[in-house]
């Protein structure tokens, strides 16, 4: 399978990428790792007329300790997130989840920024950064703005990013030693989650987000509120689907997903409480 023909330009900086995308308008798409976009283009589910390759914007590939948060460049690959010492120390939930994205070959190419910008509810890192209370930094022709992860996801593959804006940095608050767990339920090793859960917990506080439980990644606020009010883990986990609206598909029905979500949230909170 070969994608439909397109023009190709390479950007060497975020500013150049943004000026190119403003020039070509809605026919243009950024190409980061290409591991979501190229499969779609091969199936002709996407046919952009222009690809702007940002894969070589090397100064957007970094992981930095920025005091109370860790700053991750949008072009940082999953493999680098997975193996980062800084993240393993300060945001181990994120580095662990990155290690569960696809397979090694996918993790060598796919980027955290591509994963978040793609806004697939079945992806692991949108939900994980949502659970961690991340902020995304985007840059457009008029400069930069910060978007809280809680405000970013608008619908299936839809986000608050404008067509001429580029995601440049992900800011993840340090976990300060909180317990955590990432639960991914799938049938084959390399697959996307049928349902996934990213959770952290410390005394009187928890954060839980769900993968593939609706048209966006879902923040399970009822669970977190229940934990904060002192509910038992099983009572809190029973509320796993309060904010969710999962679809039925070949892998699982809506009811099955809701059941699975409460089981996985319970397991995640138990593991995070150890």
């Amino acid at each position, binding site marked *: 399978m070969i994608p439909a023909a397109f023009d190709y330009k390479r950007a060497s900086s975020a500013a150049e990428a943004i000026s190119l995308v403003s020039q070509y308008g809605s026919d243009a798409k950024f190409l980061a790792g290409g591991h979501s976009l190229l499969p779609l283009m091969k199936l002709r589910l996407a046919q952009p007329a222009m690809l702007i390759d940002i894969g070589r914007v090397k100064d957007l590939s970094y992981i930095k300790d920025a005091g109370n948060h860790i700053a991750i460049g949008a072009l940082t690959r999953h493999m680098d997130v997975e193996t980062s010492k800084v993240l393993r120390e300060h945001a181990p939930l994120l580095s662990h989840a990155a290690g569960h994205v696809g397979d090694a070959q996918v993790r*060598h190419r796919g980027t955290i920024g591509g994963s978040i910008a793609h806004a697939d509810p079945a992806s692991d890192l949108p939900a994980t950064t949502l659970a961690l209370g991340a902020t995304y930094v985007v840059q457009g022709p008029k400069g930069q703005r910060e978007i809280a992860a809680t405000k970013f996801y608008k619908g299936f593959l839809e986000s608050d990013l404008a067509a001429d804006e580029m995601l440049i940095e992900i800011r993840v608050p340090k976990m300060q030693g909180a317990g955590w767990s990432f639960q991914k339920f799938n049938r084959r090793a390399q697959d996307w989650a049928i349902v996934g859960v990213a959770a952290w917990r410390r005394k009187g506080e928890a954060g839980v987000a769900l993968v593939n439980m609706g048209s966006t990644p879902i923040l399970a606020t009822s669970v977190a509120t229940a934990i904060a009010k002192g509910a038992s883990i099983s009572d809190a986990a029973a509320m796993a689907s309060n904010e969710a609206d999962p679809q039925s598909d070949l892998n699982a029905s809506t009811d099955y997903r809701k059941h699975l979500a409460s089981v996985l949230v319970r397991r995640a909170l138990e593991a995070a409480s150890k």
Partner: protein
Amino acid sequence: MKVSITVNGKEHQSDVEPRTLLVHYIREVIGLTGTNVGCDTSSCGACTLHMNGEAVKSCTILAVQADGASVTTIEGLAKDGVMHPMQTAFMENHGLQCGYCTPGMVMAAIGLLNENPKPTEEQVRMGLEGNLCRCTGYHNIVKSVLAAASAK
């Protein structure tokens, strides 16, 4: 678009359409057909080769993305007629039957040992999760990779 890609140590200059996939470039432009296309949907790993030393799926990379890169395919492993230890390990441990997945399996396995020279059996199984084999049941593939790791 003009690209310059080093394949198995030799630099090639070619003019390609931007939509040319790296696997098609390797097979049809360079003429090295050891790298197979299996699923063509990023799942099976048959098209795995090394780009700048790392295992990647060449059906999901554009040749223009590999411009300036150094690529190693299954044909580039043997040195002076002597097989790479991973190839020998696959042969000695019956790590293949029909052989279709084998070039990708071997490239993924070498990539795995580059990152984790002494993996456990579990780590080998997880490390090869991006490669599917329809014949062997994986048992002898895992055995081959562990044999290559302990031969080092």
